[in-house]
């Protein structure tokens, strides 16, 4: 029984169906990656998990509880956290204020949670009173992840966390994400850099035209010549 499970998702924008029976799930301490060609509905699937998309059918459960009808804010209250692909920080506020905003839904003191974030991303600790808009691309992504973790979620949703960052930073970010999962979180992410992401993933979902085409462990998908050729850019 997975912690978060979205099953048989069908939906889209207006009359355009983007998702046609798509299923994703991930358990505590595991990393699942959604990959697939452009326009396959990867980000849309993630939005559906968070509740930002009006579904025609399908169910989302969190720890066995049906949350399909819950609005996004209530899902976040229930233990989900989301890092959007862009505009994922408050640029004119300081790093620390960004973390404070992340913990808005929590009523208890936030010092401990902030300390955990600072020990996970030491660079943020150094820049805690700097304006977030002045951070470098990689630091911004770290802050965005840190902000999302402030609610101490059980599920972390990441929409292309490595979009637009340099390869070095990418490796570092993936390492951090592995570290986060190891603490017991269920991590679900959408990635453009499929090959790299599948290396750290426990499960990979390959979406094509809004439906699951292949599902398997990260290494299985990486070693499968079919998926390699079709979706991983045919890299050796």
């Amino acid at each position, binding site marked *: 029984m997975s912690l978060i499970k979205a099953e048989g998702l069908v939906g889209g924008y207006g009359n355009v169906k983007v998702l046609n029976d798509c299923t994703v799930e991930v358990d505590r301490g595991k990393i699942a990656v959604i990959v697939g060609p452009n326009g396959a509905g990867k980000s849309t699937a993630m939005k559906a998990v968070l509740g930002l998309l009006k579904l025609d059918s399908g169910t989302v459960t969190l720890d066995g509880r049906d949350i399909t009808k819950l609005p996004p804010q209530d899902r*976040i209250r229930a233990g989900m956290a989301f890092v959007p692909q862009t505009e994922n920080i408050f640029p004119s506020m300081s790093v620390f204020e960004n973390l404070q905003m992340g913990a808005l839904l929590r009523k208890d003191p936030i010092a401990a949670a902030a300390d955990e974030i600072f020990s996970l991303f030491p660079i943020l600790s150094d820049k805690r009173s700097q304006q977030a808009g002045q951070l470098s691309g990689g630091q911004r992504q770290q802050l965005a992840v840190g902000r999302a973790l402030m609610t101490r979620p059980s599920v972390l949703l990441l929409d292309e966390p490595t979009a637009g960052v340099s390869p070095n930073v990418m490796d570092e970010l993936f390492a951090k994400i592995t570290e986060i999962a190891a603490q017991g979180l269920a991590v679900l992410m959408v990635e453009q850099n499929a090959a790299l992401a599948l290396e750290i993933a426990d499960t990979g979902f390959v979406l094509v035209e809004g439906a699951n085409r292949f599902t398997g462990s990260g290494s299985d998908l990486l070693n499968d010549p079919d998926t390699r050729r079709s979706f991983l850019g045919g890299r050796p």
Partner: protein
Amino acid sequence: MTDILNAFSHITSLLVIPGLAYASQLAFGALGVTLIFGVLRFSNFAHAEGMSLATMFCILITVWLQGASVSIAPLPTALIAMFLAIPLVALVFIGTDRALYKHFRAINAKPEVFMIVSAGIMLISNGVIRVVIGPEGQSFADGERFILTAREFREWTGLTEALVLKTSQLLSIVLALIAGGLLFWFLNRTQMGRSMRAYSDNRNLALLSGVDPNKIVWVTWILVAVLSVMGGVLFGLDKGYRPFVFQQMLLPMFAAAVVGGLGSPVGAVVGSMVVAFSELLLTFAWKKFLAYLLPTGLAPESLMQILATEYKFAISFLILVIVLLIKPTGLFGRATK
């Protein structure tokens, strides 16, 4: 030496103090403009009329208080009236928001639509004010008019040039400092204030973080009501209340907000200083000042005014246009978009 002191007293009395008072009054308006822009995302054309409306409430309450012989002399009665007017004005603003702006937010209307609606509200308030209180000027200042009169100063110092300080000027400056301090404390140090800034910074992320947009909108209008009442009353005490005067404040206020960067409260304050002092410096008659400082033979004959006083209001527009063309984001504006 006396000449230098005279020159100093002359510009303090006629330039520095009026400039600070005007900048303070302007800052109340510009902060309102910038808060509405930051949180609600539109330029509020009705803002000047809103201040006028707020002042109108205050005048009516002041008259009522004076009738009931409530007084805090030597301070003007309007100061008490202010506190009574704030809830009323806040109700009007929130009512307008619920009746109109809320709908346009819900349908995600373009900023132009908000501006057109605010122009409609401007027209309505304009008419209502004139029907209720009449188009003529109203004097509602009571209490002590001067803190330092010309005669007192001359007797005290023996200088020819008197340094005059009006109660309304000192009140404007002091209350602006207090209100500004409280506003910045609220925005930077409280959860609600942070949420407001976050909402204006990145609306979607703020919503995801659990910010309640309705609450933010309410608090914004309440803040705007407080600022409008204070700014309007202080301006009215200083310059006398005439309904159309506030319409002329609209562009200096916009100019101040844009110079500082729309959406930035610090910018609004700095922008107000820039606009107020540019207006005064450029239209100030420097003749007397120079006559005191220069040797007798060199004293200028003309008024030494850079621009005619009639251009006073045009200056703020000019600053506005120049800033828009050179750096539309203003001094403290966000770099993005």
